[in-house]
Protein backbone atom coordinates (compact mmCIF):
# COMPACT_ATOMS: atom_id res chain seq x y z
CA UNK A 1 0.00 0.00 0.00
CA UNK A 2 2.76 2.33 1.02
CA UNK A 3 4.69 1.38 -2.10
CA UNK A 4 1.70 2.19 -4.35
CA UNK A 5 1.27 5.57 -2.60
CA UNK A 6 5.01 6.36 -2.96
CA UNK A 7 5.03 5.54 -6.70
CA UNK A 8 1.85 7.58 -7.23
CA UNK A 9 3.40 10.57 -5.40
CA UNK A 10 6.50 10.32 -7.52
CA UNK A 11 4.49 10.21 -10.71
CA UNK A 12 2.09 13.10 -9.92
CA UNK A 13 4.44 15.54 -8.11
CA UNK A 14 5.08 17.62 -11.24
CA UNK A 15 1.32 18.14 -11.60
CA UNK A 16 0.91 19.34 -8.04
CA UNK A 17 4.37 21.05 -7.65
CA UNK A 18 4.72 24.82 -8.08
CA UNK A 19 4.33 25.56 -11.80
CA UNK A 20 6.01 28.60 -13.25
CA UNK A 21 3.82 31.40 -14.60
CA UNK A 22 4.14 32.76 -18.12
CA UNK A 23 5.75 35.92 -16.79
CA UNK A 24 8.30 33.95 -14.84
CA UNK A 25 9.15 31.99 -17.93
CA UNK A 26 9.50 35.23 -19.94
CA UNK A 27 11.72 36.74 -17.29
CA UNK A 28 13.90 33.66 -17.47
CA UNK A 29 14.27 34.15 -21.22
CA UNK A 30 15.14 37.93 -20.82
CA UNK A 31 17.43 37.50 -17.88
CA UNK A 32 20.76 38.74 -19.37
CA UNK A 33 22.33 38.51 -16.02
CA UNK A 34 22.32 34.81 -16.48
CA UNK A 35 24.34 35.11 -19.69
CA UNK A 36 26.37 38.17 -18.61
CA UNK A 37 29.28 36.09 -17.61
CA UNK A 38 29.20 34.36 -20.97
CA UNK A 39 29.25 37.77 -22.77
CA UNK A 40 32.07 39.00 -20.56
CA UNK A 41 34.14 36.05 -21.43
CA UNK A 42 33.46 36.76 -25.14
CA UNK A 43 34.94 40.30 -24.57
CA UNK A 44 31.94 41.98 -26.22
CA UNK A 45 31.79 44.48 -23.37
CA UNK A 46 35.33 45.57 -24.15
CA UNK A 47 34.47 46.07 -27.79
CA UNK A 48 31.42 48.14 -26.88
CA UNK A 49 33.48 50.35 -24.53
CA UNK A 50 36.19 50.85 -27.16
CA UNK A 51 33.58 51.87 -29.73
CA UNK A 52 31.99 54.29 -27.26
CA UNK A 53 35.40 55.87 -26.59
CA UNK A 54 36.16 56.19 -30.31
CA UNK A 55 32.77 57.81 -30.92
CA UNK A 56 33.27 60.32 -28.09
CA UNK A 57 36.68 61.20 -29.57
CA UNK A 58 35.13 61.84 -32.99
CA UNK A 59 32.38 63.96 -31.44
CA UNK A 60 34.95 65.97 -29.45
CA UNK A 61 37.03 66.59 -32.59
CA UNK A 62 33.97 67.78 -34.47
CA UNK A 63 33.01 70.16 -31.66
CA UNK A 64 36.57 71.59 -31.57
CA UNK A 65 36.54 72.01 -35.38
CA UNK A 66 33.22 73.85 -35.26
CA UNK A 67 34.48 76.09 -32.44
CA UNK A 68 37.67 76.87 -34.40
CA UNK A 69 35.64 77.99 -37.40
CA UNK A 70 34.25 80.77 -35.17
CA UNK A 71 37.73 82.07 -34.34
CA UNK A 72 38.56 85.78 -34.56
CA UNK A 73 42.04 86.67 -35.86
CA UNK A 74 44.69 87.63 -33.32
CA UNK A 75 46.50 90.97 -33.11
CA UNK A 76 49.14 89.63 -35.52
CA UNK A 77 46.67 88.46 -38.16
CA UNK A 78 43.86 91.06 -38.21
CA UNK A 79 45.56 94.14 -39.62
CA UNK A 80 46.15 93.12 -43.23
CA UNK A 81 42.48 92.22 -43.59
CA UNK A 82 41.23 95.41 -41.93
CA UNK A 83 43.54 97.71 -43.89
CA UNK A 84 42.93 96.12 -47.28
CA UNK A 85 39.19 96.09 -46.67
CA UNK A 86 39.37 99.79 -45.76
CA UNK A 87 41.27 100.45 -49.02
CA UNK A 88 38.62 98.54 -50.99
CA UNK A 89 35.77 100.44 -49.33
CA UNK A 90 37.49 103.78 -50.05
CA UNK A 91 38.53 103.11 -53.63
CA UNK A 92 36.53 106.09 -54.97
CA UNK A 93 37.94 108.49 -52.38
CA UNK A 94 41.56 107.32 -52.59
CA UNK A 95 41.59 106.81 -56.35
CA UNK A 96 44.12 103.98 -56.36
CA UNK A 97 42.49 102.11 -59.22
CA UNK A 98 44.26 103.60 -62.22
CA UNK A 99 46.89 102.48 -64.70
CA UNK A 100 50.39 103.45 -63.69
CA UNK A 101 53.90 102.63 -64.84
CA UNK A 102 56.49 100.95 -62.66
CA UNK A 103 58.31 103.90 -61.09
CA UNK A 104 60.93 101.64 -59.50
CA UNK A 105 60.21 103.19 -56.11
CA UNK A 106 59.80 99.82 -54.39
CA UNK A 107 63.21 98.57 -55.56
CA UNK A 108 64.90 101.73 -54.33
CA UNK A 109 63.11 101.64 -50.97
CA UNK A 110 63.99 97.97 -50.59
CA UNK A 111 67.72 98.65 -50.86
CA UNK A 112 67.34 101.75 -48.65
CA UNK A 113 65.77 99.69 -45.86
CA UNK A 114 68.58 97.14 -46.17
CA UNK A 115 71.15 99.93 -45.79
CA UNK A 116 69.33 101.01 -42.62
CA UNK A 117 69.63 97.36 -41.46
CA UNK A 118 65.94 96.54 -41.52
CA UNK A 119 65.87 92.97 -42.78
CA UNK A 120 63.05 90.49 -43.42
CA UNK A 121 60.52 93.24 -43.91
CA UNK A 122 57.78 93.01 -46.54
CA UNK A 123 55.99 96.07 -47.85
CA UNK A 124 53.45 97.09 -50.46
CA UNK A 125 53.34 100.58 -51.97
CA UNK A 126 50.05 101.83 -53.31
CA UNK A 127 50.18 104.93 -55.51
CA UNK A 128 47.02 107.02 -55.22
CA UNK A 129 45.82 109.71 -57.59
CA UNK A 130 44.65 112.25 -55.03
CA UNK A 131 46.28 114.91 -52.82
CA UNK A 132 43.83 114.02 -50.02
CA UNK A 133 46.49 111.78 -48.50
CA UNK A 134 50.06 112.81 -49.33
CA UNK A 135 51.75 109.81 -47.78
CA UNK A 136 50.83 107.37 -45.03
CA UNK A 137 51.75 103.97 -43.66
CA UNK A 138 48.90 101.64 -42.81
CA UNK A 139 49.08 98.63 -40.51
CA UNK A 140 49.54 95.15 -41.93
CA UNK A 141 50.57 91.86 -40.37
CA UNK A 142 53.79 91.31 -38.48
CA UNK A 143 56.86 92.66 -40.33
CA UNK A 144 54.61 93.84 -43.16
CA UNK A 145 53.76 97.41 -44.16
CA UNK A 146 51.36 99.08 -46.56
CA UNK A 147 52.35 102.57 -47.78
CA UNK A 148 50.15 105.09 -49.53
CA UNK A 149 51.88 107.62 -51.77
CA UNK A 150 50.15 110.44 -53.61
CA UNK A 151 51.12 110.85 -57.26
CA UNK A 152 50.08 114.55 -57.40
CA UNK A 153 52.16 115.17 -54.23
CA UNK A 154 55.23 113.51 -55.76
CA UNK A 155 54.83 115.41 -59.01
CA UNK A 156 54.24 118.81 -57.36
CA UNK A 157 57.36 118.43 -55.23
CA UNK A 158 59.26 116.79 -58.08
CA UNK A 159 60.56 114.17 -55.66
CA UNK A 160 63.54 111.97 -56.48
CA UNK A 161 63.60 108.28 -55.61
CA UNK A 162 65.94 108.98 -52.68
CA UNK A 163 63.57 111.62 -51.31
CA UNK A 164 60.63 109.26 -51.68
CA UNK A 165 62.55 106.50 -49.91
CA UNK A 166 63.30 108.82 -46.98
CA UNK A 167 59.66 109.96 -46.87
CA UNK A 168 58.55 106.32 -46.76
CA UNK A 169 61.19 105.64 -44.12
CA UNK A 170 59.67 108.33 -41.92
CA UNK A 171 56.29 106.58 -42.29
CA UNK A 172 57.99 103.25 -41.59
CA UNK A 173 59.32 104.60 -38.28
CA UNK A 174 55.89 106.05 -37.44
CA UNK A 175 54.26 102.65 -37.96
CA UNK A 176 56.92 100.94 -35.81
CA UNK A 177 56.14 103.33 -32.98
CA UNK A 178 52.52 102.15 -33.07
CA UNK A 179 50.81 105.56 -32.90
CA UNK A 180 48.18 104.74 -35.50
CA UNK A 181 47.37 101.27 -34.18
CA UNK A 182 47.04 102.62 -30.66
CA UNK A 183 44.54 105.26 -31.77
CA UNK A 184 42.33 102.99 -33.89
CA UNK A 185 42.34 99.99 -31.50
CA UNK A 186 39.35 100.64 -29.27
CA UNK A 187 38.93 98.64 -26.05
CA UNK A 188 36.02 96.53 -27.35
CA UNK A 189 37.90 95.71 -30.54
CA UNK A 190 41.01 94.60 -28.63
CA UNK A 191 38.94 92.41 -26.33
CA UNK A 192 37.75 90.27 -29.29
CA UNK A 193 41.14 89.54 -30.85
CA UNK A 194 42.32 85.94 -30.69
CA UNK A 195 39.03 84.69 -29.22
CA UNK A 196 36.00 82.87 -30.65
CA UNK A 197 32.44 84.08 -30.96
CA UNK A 198 29.15 82.25 -30.68
CA UNK A 199 26.85 81.78 -33.68
CA UNK A 200 24.69 84.83 -34.15
CA UNK A 201 26.62 86.85 -31.57
CA UNK A 202 29.35 88.52 -33.60
CA UNK A 203 29.81 92.19 -32.74
CA UNK A 204 30.59 93.52 -36.22
CA UNK A 205 30.04 97.07 -34.99
CA UNK A 206 33.25 96.91 -32.96
CA UNK A 207 35.21 96.27 -36.16
CA UNK A 208 33.37 98.90 -38.20
CA UNK A 209 34.31 101.45 -35.53
CA UNK A 210 37.97 100.67 -36.25
CA UNK A 211 37.45 101.78 -39.86
CA UNK A 212 35.80 104.96 -38.60
CA UNK A 213 38.92 105.57 -36.49
CA UNK A 214 41.04 105.03 -39.60
CA UNK A 215 39.14 107.85 -41.33
CA UNK A 216 39.36 110.10 -38.29
CA UNK A 217 43.11 109.74 -37.94
CA UNK A 218 44.09 109.77 -41.62
CA UNK A 219 41.89 112.68 -42.73
CA UNK A 220 41.52 114.81 -39.59
CA UNK A 221 43.50 114.09 -36.46
CA UNK A 222 46.97 113.07 -37.63
CA UNK A 223 50.03 112.94 -35.39
CA UNK A 224 50.73 115.27 -32.49
CA UNK A 225 53.84 117.36 -31.89
CA UNK A 226 55.44 114.93 -29.47
CA UNK A 227 55.00 112.05 -31.91
CA UNK A 228 56.45 114.14 -34.73
CA UNK A 229 59.41 115.12 -32.56
CA UNK A 230 60.17 111.50 -31.64
CA UNK A 231 59.90 110.33 -35.24
CA UNK A 232 62.05 113.17 -36.59
CA UNK A 233 64.79 112.51 -34.04
CA UNK A 234 64.76 108.77 -34.69
CA UNK A 235 64.90 109.17 -38.47
CA UNK A 236 67.77 111.61 -38.10
CA UNK A 237 69.63 109.16 -35.85
CA UNK A 238 69.41 106.47 -38.50
CA UNK A 239 70.51 108.87 -41.24
CA UNK A 240 73.48 110.22 -39.25
CA UNK A 241 75.52 107.28 -40.45
CA UNK A 242 74.78 108.28 -44.05
CA UNK A 243 75.45 112.03 -44.47
CA UNK A 244 74.27 112.02 -48.08
CA UNK A 245 70.84 110.79 -46.93
CA UNK A 246 70.77 113.23 -44.06
CA UNK A 247 71.19 116.20 -46.41
CA UNK A 248 68.48 114.79 -48.67
CA UNK A 249 66.18 114.58 -45.61
CA UNK A 250 66.75 118.27 -44.80
CA UNK A 251 66.14 119.19 -48.45
CA UNK A 252 62.92 117.16 -48.45
CA UNK A 253 61.62 118.91 -45.31
CA UNK A 254 62.40 122.29 -46.85
CA UNK A 255 60.53 121.36 -50.03
CA UNK A 256 57.46 120.25 -48.05
CA UNK A 257 57.62 123.36 -45.89
CA UNK A 258 57.64 125.59 -48.97
CA UNK A 259 54.70 123.63 -50.44
CA UNK A 260 52.45 123.87 -47.36
CA UNK A 261 53.16 127.60 -47.02
CA UNK A 262 52.48 128.44 -50.65
CA UNK A 263 49.94 125.94 -51.98
CA UNK A 264 46.45 126.13 -50.50
CA UNK A 265 45.57 122.59 -51.53
CA UNK A 266 48.32 121.30 -49.22
CA UNK A 267 47.74 123.65 -46.29
CA UNK A 268 46.00 120.86 -44.34
CA UNK A 269 49.21 118.79 -44.51
CA UNK A 270 50.28 120.26 -41.16
CA UNK A 271 47.12 118.88 -39.51
CA UNK A 272 48.39 115.36 -40.15
CA UNK A 273 52.17 115.99 -39.97
CA UNK A 274 52.92 119.02 -37.82
CA UNK A 275 55.02 120.73 -39.09
CA UNK A 276 57.98 120.67 -41.50
CA UNK A 277 59.21 124.00 -40.16
CA UNK A 278 59.33 122.65 -36.60
CA UNK A 279 61.02 119.49 -37.80
CA UNK A 280 63.80 121.58 -39.34
CA UNK A 281 64.12 123.54 -36.09
CA UNK A 282 64.40 120.34 -34.07
CA UNK A 283 67.16 119.19 -36.37
CA UNK A 284 68.95 122.51 -36.04
CA UNK A 285 68.25 123.39 -39.64
CA UNK A 286 65.59 126.00 -39.00
CA UNK A 287 67.56 128.96 -40.38
CA UNK A 288 67.87 127.62 -43.91
CA UNK A 289 64.25 128.27 -45.00
Amino acid at each position, binding site marked *: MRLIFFITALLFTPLFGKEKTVDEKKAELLDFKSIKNILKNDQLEKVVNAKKKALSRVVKKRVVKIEKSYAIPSEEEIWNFLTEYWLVLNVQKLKWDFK*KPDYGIHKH*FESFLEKMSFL*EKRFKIL*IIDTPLITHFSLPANKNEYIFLLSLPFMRTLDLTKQEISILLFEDFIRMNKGYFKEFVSLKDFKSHLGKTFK*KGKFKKQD*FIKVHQRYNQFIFKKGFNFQQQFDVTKEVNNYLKGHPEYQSIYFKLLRKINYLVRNKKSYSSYVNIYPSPELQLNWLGRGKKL
Partner: protein
Amino acid sequence: MGKIFFFILLFCSCFSQANEYFINENFISLGQNPVRNSDPLSLLSCGHKVRVEELSQEWSLIKVGPYKGYIKKSFLNKKKPICFQDKFPKFFDEFNIKLTEMLYWAQLNDQYFEGKTK
Protein backbone atom coordinates in the same frame (compact mmCIF):
# COMPACT_ATOMS: atom_id res chain seq x y z
CA MET B 1 54.29 45.85 -71.52
CA GLY B 2 52.10 46.33 -68.50
CA LYS B 3 55.07 47.62 -66.49
CA ILE B 4 55.97 50.13 -69.20
CA PHE B 5 52.37 51.38 -69.31
CA PHE B 6 52.36 51.69 -65.51
CA PHE B 7 55.55 53.79 -65.47
CA ILE B 8 54.25 56.04 -68.25
CA LEU B 9 51.06 56.64 -66.23
CA LEU B 10 53.08 57.35 -63.09
CA PHE B 11 55.31 59.80 -64.97
CA CYS B 12 52.30 61.60 -66.48
CA SER B 13 50.59 61.97 -63.10
CA CYS B 14 53.78 63.29 -61.47
CA PHE B 15 54.27 65.73 -64.33
CA SER B 16 50.72 67.03 -64.10
CA GLN B 17 51.06 67.52 -60.31
CA ALA B 18 54.35 69.35 -60.91
CA ASN B 19 52.42 72.03 -62.81
CA GLU B 20 49.79 72.51 -60.12
CA TYR B 21 50.00 75.57 -57.93
CA PHE B 22 47.77 77.41 -55.47
CA ILE B 23 46.71 81.06 -55.23
CA ASN B 24 48.13 82.73 -52.10
CA GLU B 25 46.22 86.04 -51.93
CA ASN B 26 42.64 86.76 -50.87
CA PHE B 27 41.44 87.67 -54.35
CA ILE B 28 43.29 87.76 -57.68
CA SER B 29 42.30 88.76 -61.20
CA LEU B 30 43.20 86.40 -64.02
CA GLY B 31 44.36 88.84 -66.71
CA GLN B 32 44.24 88.55 -70.47
CA ASN B 33 47.80 89.85 -70.84
CA PRO B 34 51.01 89.70 -68.78
CA VAL B 35 50.74 93.35 -67.66
CA ARG B 36 49.30 95.17 -64.64
CA ASN B 37 45.62 96.11 -64.85
CA SER B 38 45.01 93.76 -67.75
CA ASP B 39 41.34 93.14 -68.57
CA PRO B 40 40.16 90.43 -66.16
CA LEU B 41 38.97 87.05 -67.35
CA SER B 42 38.09 85.57 -63.98
CA LEU B 43 38.27 86.11 -60.23
CA LEU B 44 40.36 83.65 -58.21
CA SER B 45 40.42 83.30 -54.46
CA CYS B 46 43.03 82.07 -52.02
CA GLY B 47 43.69 78.34 -52.09
CA HIS B 48 42.35 77.93 -55.62
CA LYS B 49 44.31 75.24 -57.51
CA VAL B 50 45.59 76.27 -60.93
CA ARG B 51 47.66 74.64 -63.65
CA VAL B 52 50.72 76.60 -64.74
CA GLU B 53 51.43 76.44 -68.45
CA GLU B 54 54.37 78.88 -68.58
CA LEU B 55 56.47 80.35 -65.78
CA SER B 56 58.55 83.44 -66.48
CA GLN B 57 60.37 85.85 -64.12
CA GLU B 58 57.38 87.99 -63.26
CA TRP B 59 54.27 86.51 -64.91
CA SER B 60 52.76 83.06 -65.22
CA LEU B 61 50.38 81.75 -67.86
CA ILE B 62 47.88 79.60 -66.03
CA LYS B 63 44.84 77.52 -66.85
CA VAL B 64 41.87 77.41 -64.51
CA GLY B 65 38.67 75.84 -65.69
CA PRO B 66 37.97 77.01 -69.22
CA TYR B 67 40.15 80.11 -68.80
CA LYS B 68 43.75 80.71 -69.73
CA GLY B 69 45.35 83.92 -68.54
CA TYR B 70 48.15 85.65 -66.66
CA ILE B 71 48.83 86.33 -63.02
CA LYS B 72 51.95 87.47 -61.20
CA LYS B 73 54.29 84.66 -60.23
CA SER B 74 54.33 85.99 -56.64
CA PHE B 75 50.64 85.02 -56.32
CA LEU B 76 51.45 81.33 -56.72
CA ASN B 77 52.44 78.77 -54.07
CA LYS B 78 53.50 75.21 -54.69
CA LYS B 79 51.85 74.08 -51.45
CA LYS B 80 48.33 75.04 -50.46
CA PRO B 81 48.64 78.16 -48.27
CA ILE B 82 46.76 78.78 -45.03
CA CYS B 83 44.21 81.25 -46.33
CA PHE B 84 42.61 83.90 -44.14
CA GLN B 85 39.11 82.88 -45.32
CA ASP B 86 39.82 79.24 -44.42
CA LYS B 87 41.40 79.97 -41.06
CA PHE B 88 38.62 82.36 -39.98
CA PRO B 89 35.64 81.32 -42.11
CA LYS B 90 32.78 82.51 -39.89
CA PHE B 91 34.55 85.79 -39.08
CA PHE B 92 35.08 86.41 -42.80
CA ASP B 93 31.45 85.55 -43.62
CA GLU B 94 30.17 88.09 -41.08
CA PHE B 95 31.44 90.94 -43.26
CA ASN B 96 29.25 89.86 -46.22
CA ILE B 97 31.81 91.01 -48.76
CA LYS B 98 30.03 91.82 -52.00
CA LEU B 99 31.15 90.67 -55.44
CA THR B 100 32.13 94.22 -56.47
CA GLU B 101 34.27 94.48 -53.34
CA MET B 102 35.95 91.17 -54.19
CA LEU B 103 36.69 92.47 -57.70
CA TYR B 104 38.21 95.65 -56.28
CA TRP B 105 40.21 93.57 -53.82
CA ALA B 106 41.60 91.57 -56.73
CA GLN B 107 42.50 94.83 -58.49
CA LEU B 108 44.11 96.14 -55.30
CA ASN B 109 46.54 93.21 -55.34
CA ASP B 110 47.37 94.11 -58.94
CA GLN B 111 48.07 97.74 -58.02
CA TYR B 112 50.67 97.15 -55.32
CA PHE B 113 54.39 97.56 -55.87
CA GLU B 114 55.83 94.95 -53.53
CA GLY B 115 59.20 94.69 -51.91
CA LYS B 116 60.96 92.49 -49.41
CA THR B 117 64.29 93.08 -47.70
CA LYS B 118 66.75 90.22 -47.32
